[in-house]
């Protein structure tokens, strides 16, 4: 399937998306066939007239059992194939060397936090949240690990590397949805959910909010930019906050 | 305007009964009033001594089933909240569930409620006592009512004592500093006891209505139904309380 479009879906840019798109395609085809068959049967039943009168015997139940068993087989195939994919994507966490990014939703903006050179996220305190003063996530500046954290409103990821997103929210439930990456996860206050995927095709992908979160729900959008590893490194470099002692640049 | 319903004409059964068979039988439905064994000729509500009672009991049963689901929702929320701790960075289990020591008066309240169940059962039994019911039906005074009413009054008193005891328990908790909003746990304590208490207030209201009904209603059957339904409701609230009490005592 690759870069082909499945019906109306946007092109897929993630590694796992290939399998998902294939599954989606088969499902849509199977269900469309059933839709057409059922309606053809409906019309035929209404239009067709038999020449001889039929006896008043009840039709044998087997006429219904056979299609029912066929349908059960189809549903079972759908369920099993989907579960295998679900297990692969969701049952395990990300690989230990996956890139860590924290995604925070708030009315009506997405923020992305990178741990920086030390690889550790700094502490956050809700009472320190002050977006106009440049601290939208409430970074605790007294924590040494937060000095190199990069907070961005664009999600920049290197192509080909698995990323582990920690999704959280500071006010209401939001929905983190990247159609082009075939990922969706609700951001629930009080919980941090982790999803992982591997962006493989460079490009610009819209990030949408998929859970109604207030009057700005429709405009709560962001961008995912999948770039080459070098571009990603240089982006990181240019965004690393200056340390107070001049180091880090 | 609702349509008037056309009636299909009644027909006299004229089956061919064969040689030497039975004479034709008139099977037209008679207008109202029984007079034979045909269930359908009796107007609804008068088809037997237990028909109305069964119907009201059934209605009460379904209502209590819904009520049970309501309490189950609260109890599930209780368990969910109880187990909502998480593991922090050092694999320590962090939770803000602080088990609540229930005020000891709750034990007395439980005993009082169980006694009140006993007393209302006595009242209910008296009202179904055959000899007394027969006398009432014949119009010879109201011995069943006279025997049952003290028990009903006793139940009302005991129920009120229970509610008073619950109020005292709240005061005791409050004086320890545990109000409705203090901890997660105290939310549930107050919410559960309050919801049960409201149900019990409704029960006491029902008891008072039943007492009045005993003297104002003229049909024996209706008096039985009012007290019977009130009694079953009361018993159910008692059973619910036992479960809630066990929950609050042992499952914190």
């Amino acid at each position, binding site marked *: 399937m690759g870069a082909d479009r499945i*019906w*109306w*879906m*946007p092109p897929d840019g993630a590694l796992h998306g290939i399998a998902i798109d294939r599954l*989606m395609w088969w*499902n849509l085809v199977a*269900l469309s066939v*059933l839709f057409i068959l*059922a309606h053809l049967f*409906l019309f035929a*039943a209404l239009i067709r007239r*038999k020449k001889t009168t*039929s006896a*008043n015997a*009840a039709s044998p139940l087997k*006429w*219904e059992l056979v299609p*029912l068993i066929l349908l059960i087989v189809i*549903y079972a195939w*759908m369920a099993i194939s*989907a579960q295998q994919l*679900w297990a692969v994507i*969701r*049952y395990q966490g990300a690989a230990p060397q996956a890139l860590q990014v924290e995604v925070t939703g708030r009315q009506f903006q997405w923020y992305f936090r990178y741990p920086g050179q030390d690889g550790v996220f700094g502490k956050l305190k*809700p009472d320190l*949240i002050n977006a106009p003063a440049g601290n939208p996530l409430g970074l605790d500046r007294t924590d040494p690990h937060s000095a190199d954290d990069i907070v961005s409103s664009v999600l920049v990821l290197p192509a080909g590397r698995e990323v582990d997103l920690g999704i959280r929210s500071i*006010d*209401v439930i939001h*929905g983190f949805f990247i159609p082009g990456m075939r990922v*969706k996860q609700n951001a*629930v206050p*009080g919980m941090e959910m982790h999803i992982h995927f591997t962006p493989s095709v460079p490009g610009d992908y*819209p990030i*949408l909010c*998929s859970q*109604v979160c*207030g009057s700005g*729900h*429709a405009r709560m959008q962001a*961008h995912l930019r999948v770039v080459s590893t070098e571009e990603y490194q240089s982006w990181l470099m240019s965004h690393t906050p200056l340390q107070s002692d001049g180091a880090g640049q | 305007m*609702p*349509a008037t*319903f056309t009636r*299909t004409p009644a*027909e006299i059964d004229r089956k061919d009964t064969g040689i030497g068979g039975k004479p034709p039988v008139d099977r037209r*439905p008679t207008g109202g009033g029984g007079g034979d064994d045909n269930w359908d000729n009796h107007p*609804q509500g008068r088809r037997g001594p237990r028909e109305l009672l069964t*119907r009201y009991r*059934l*209605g009460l049963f379904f*209502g209590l089933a*819904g009520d049970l*689901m309501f309490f189950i*929702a*609260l109890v599930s*929320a209780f368990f969910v909240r109880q187990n909502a701790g998480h593991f922090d960075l050092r694999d320590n289990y962090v939770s*803000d569930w602080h088990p609540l020591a229930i005020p000891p008066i709750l034990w007395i309240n439980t005993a009082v409620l169980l006694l009140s169940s006993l007393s209302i059962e006595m009242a209910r039994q008296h009202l179904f006592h055959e000899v007394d019911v027969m006398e009432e039906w014949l119009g010879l005074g109201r011995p069943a009512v006279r025997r049952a009413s003290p028990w009903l009054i006793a139940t009302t008193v005991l129920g009120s004592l229970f509610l008073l005891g619950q109020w005292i328990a709240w005061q005791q908790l409050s004086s320890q500093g545990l109000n409705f909003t203090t*901890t*997660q746990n105290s*939310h549930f304590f107050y919410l559960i006891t309050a919801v049960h208490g409201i149900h019990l207030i409704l029960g006491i209201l029902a008891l008072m209505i039943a007492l009045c009904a005993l003297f104002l209603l003229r049909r024996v059957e209706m008096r039985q139904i009012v007290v019977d339904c009130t009694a079953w409701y009361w018993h159910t609230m008692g059973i619910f309380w036992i479960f809630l009490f066990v929950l609050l005592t042992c499952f914190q």
Partner: protein
Amino acid sequence: MMRRWPFTTDHRAIAIAYLLLSLFAVAVGTVLSVFMRIHIIAPNLKLPFWGVVPPEGYLALVTMHGTLMVFFVLTTAPVNGLASLVLPAQIGARRMALPLLNAAGFWLTTLSLIVLLSAFFVPGGAPISGWTNYPPLSAIAAAGPGQATGMDLWLVSIGIFCLASILSSINLLTTIISKRCSGMTLMRMPLTIWAWLVTAILIVFAFSILLAAVVMLLSDRHFATSFFVPPGEVIDGALVALHANGSPMLWLHLFWFFGHPEVYIAILPAMGLTSSLLANFTRRPVFGYGFMVTTTVAIGLLGLMVWGHHMFVSGMNPYAGTAFALTTMAIAVPSSAKVLGWLAMLWRGRDSRVHPLPTPMLFTLGFLSFFITGGLTGPILAQPVLDAYLHNTYFVVAHFHLIMAMAGMFSLFAAIYYWFPLMTGRLMSEAMGKWHFWLSLIGAYGTFFPMHFAGLAGLPRHYAQLTGSTSTLGSLLPLQTGITHSALFLATAQLLFLINIVWSTLRGQPAGSNPWRATTMEWSPVEKGCMVVYGPYEYRFDGNSEDFVPQRVLETEQE
């Protein structure tokens, strides 16, 4: 001896009152949806009452549209309205078991509707969190416009509605169990009664849970508890007053434990009616009566076990997601079995069906079509990995509108056209009915089918506008424009229905006692005595005659 109208406990009068209430609710809900559709494609157009609709106005429209339609149309009309009309007669009773409860249910429902609609007129307006009202958005008044008084009114209204539904269901259950006339065994009940039986049980279970959830949310909002709100909430830059460790997931579980049975509550009576009407108009008994009963009960039972499929990406444990996916796929089996049974009835009855097909039968066929179309997208949504893409997109909107709104509504239309003679003694106009059917069918498919494509393109629900920093949404504007035009067409077609009702009440053709030559007993109610000997669908067909044996026999057949 009918008492003066407001105090009546006569079930037929209450039924008409319920149906009129639902008619009012569906009219308001439809107007709201038309406003929504217009706003999506023309956000700067001035609409009545709002002027230019602000984003929160759009969300208020969505919330109230969903609430009105799901509760006051799809729960009230098929269950309370239609059951009050025909249930006693269909089981051979003269009245309901607990008529006061029936009346109380109606008045509480009316009160609930008034409280709900008043949310539009309070400061802040109606709530904006969707009919599902996830906290913390619905728990904190500062989280959005309309979330203060408007949200409280919504909660109070729905709390009253829960009570009303539970009371009515107690009445229905007691009636079905205790007031069947002699000979009316469980396996001789019409399938509509079976449907109401299972539905009433679902109502008692599901609405009690919703009531508990509503009470807890009100408590969070006004008594400073934290069932649903975690600590550290920052709204509008201000730290919300300290909450202990609540969980929004608790609301999701409680709400959807109610919410999924709710949709089965909306559709089961329609399924029972479809079986009955297909039997009536193909002049054949129902295909596999016992089988149909089993599938009805199975759907009811399984319906209580699938609620997690609304929550696959909500933060629920992925293993739980698998479990719910399996139960959800399982419930596709009895539903498909029912559809196959209905198709078999159509196939079998092709020589015998009434000519030409009267309007109730047309709408039943429409129900079948919508149920198939909407139902077929269910298995896709039941797979968590695919639902992870489609959740909360227009694909889901298409799914539930086709199966709940259109199939459910078509079944309601069929019921009204069918039972209109019971209410007024007249038949509805066939000509207008046929136009209504065809225009609605075309309009409905035109409105909801393209939404599948918008969903596949990734368009989320509840979006007031198609703009934003990403361009992909704007490209869907032509599609959305087509949908809006079709929706306007569909809404206008419903005027035919309203005109038909009024005209037929005044000047419709008189109907006679059993215009559809049906076997079920609501067409031959008798004031005294009833003995049932036959099954409910003893349509006999030989050659081309339309013979049938009514279920009620006045004379007992004894040797």
